[in-house]
């Protein structure tokens, strides 16, 4: 992909982000932060590439460490989000 195509994706995604985030209800702003946290750990893609590369041992270990950190975030982020979301209930449930 050339730089301009990537830049196009980026700019359009910023607009998508703008409209999608404004549509998030304020009551769910904390889960929003937790889930954005989890998805920003997509950086694990880079960590995996580094960890799979054998050319530089140091780079490989840095990559593996990054994989651990990103995984904490991915699993922790999604789990804590779903834990929070499960708590939001409508009226007249239970009791």
């Amino acid at each position: 992909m050339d730089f301009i195509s990537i830049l196009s994706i980026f700019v359009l995604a910023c607009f998508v982000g703008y409209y999608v985030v404004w549509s998030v209800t304020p009551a769910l702003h904390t889960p929003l932060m937790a889930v954005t946290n989890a998805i920003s750990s997509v950086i694990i893609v880079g960590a995996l590439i580094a960890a799979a590369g054998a050319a530089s041992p140091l780079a490989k270990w840095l990559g593996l460490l990054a994989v651990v950190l990103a995984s904490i975030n991915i699993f922790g982020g999604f789990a804590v989000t779903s834990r929070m979301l499960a708590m939001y209930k409508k009226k007249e449930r239970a009791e």
Partner: protein
Amino acid sequence: MSAGTHTDLILSATFPAMPSHDAGTPGWVMLAYLVAGVCFILALRGLSSPVTSQRGNRLGMIGMAIAVVTTLLVAFGAGELGRDGPGDTRYLVIDQLALLEILAAIAIGAIIGLVTARRIAMTAMPQLVAAFHSLVGLAAVLVGAAAFLNPEAFGIATRLTPIAEPSLLLIKPLSRLELGLGVAIGAITFSGSVIAFLKLNGNMTGAPILLPCRHLINLGTLAAILVLVAWFTQDQSPWIFWTVLALSFIIGFLLIIPIGGADMPVVVSMLNSYSGWAAAAMGFTLENSAMIITGALVGSSGAILSYIMCRAMNRSFLSVIAGGFGAVASSGGGEAIDRPYKRGSAEDAAFLMRQADQVVIVPGYGMAVAQAQHILREMADLLKKEGVKVKYAIHPVAGRMPGHMNVLLAEANVPYDEVFELEDINSEFAQTDVAFVIGANDVTNPAAKTDKSSPIYGMPVLDVEKARTVLFIKRSMGGAGYAGVDNELFYRDNTMMLLADAKKMVEEIVKALA
């Protein structure tokens, strides 16, 4: 077979585990990343309502699984499928060990992440989010460093003298720019989030720490980082890269220490935004659409949340970033303590609320600190049994992060359709018999509407004073709110102060009601 592919084959024989990005990413891989990106968009879209939010979260997980599996397939040779067929056996043997290491790393992370997510108290959510931000930042730094040390694996380098042993790897200037910026943002996210975590967790004072001529130091450091990144595009020397990294760590630290506790909602959302931009910068380096889409989503999400928070405090983003707010606490508040006020007991409060048609509860950070949300809901249940209408009013900056109060109330099983945002409930206070303020202060201060000299003048506040009676729970008449201003509300005729720990007071009210 073209000459280019031939060189590739020799290279991949020399460096077996290296994915050959140079040959161009296969179509299915790009498609998979695009699908992952779309999943992430839908994950956020789901949050527009609590009804669809769970499904959105699952889509997010699916998107992440797609991105990870695709990356692993490519990194371990499946990217060659449909091009030259799978690699030879030796190639696969070496990869299995690396694959095991990676899976182990993921498993370690998964265990730590899942245990933390399960054990964390809902009141500690702001700290947790800050800690998670720091991990994203650090991961971005590590990936950046790895890409700098092994640029070939990332497909961002050209080998000047291939195969020859001391060969020279030249990273593309554009990639160096992306790498430099990505690492800088990642490092700022990391050290900034660590400070935010320490402040939120109480390991560090929430009060702003002000260094002399801090603006000069900060601007100078930022300028130095930008100049070095620009230079880095021209000169690939390692010292530039590591200096950028070190300076960015320092500036992240310096940027957050002068910011006070009450401004933490802005800081947490701002760092959220940074972690997104760091991911996006890495996405540019890797030409990966999933990372770029996610980075843009997270970046704008954090930016919008910061904007909402600033608007809710009537402060400019720049003044929050400059820090120092709340540093002059209790100045001028001294004489005000002698003003007369009405003090009530739990029994008085119970009596007033039982007689009411409608009670509006206004929770704030103090409720979170006292962990009073569960007992508060019990109180609301008892009132409802008496036929009293109970509603909750949430100010956007109540608590230490956006939506903090909503989560705590949800944890205590408060139905979300009883919880209202500022603009939806403010007109109702005039028809409300009792406004019950628990742990909130500045967000109820009428001075924000009338007193032009007040530091919080112009901030949108909840019109609690319009209710027939205001019950205000406060530990003592001493300390002021985080903005360091006295609350005029305390001395009004229709205000009754309930001076006690929030949880204890509500417990006593519950006893009196039962």
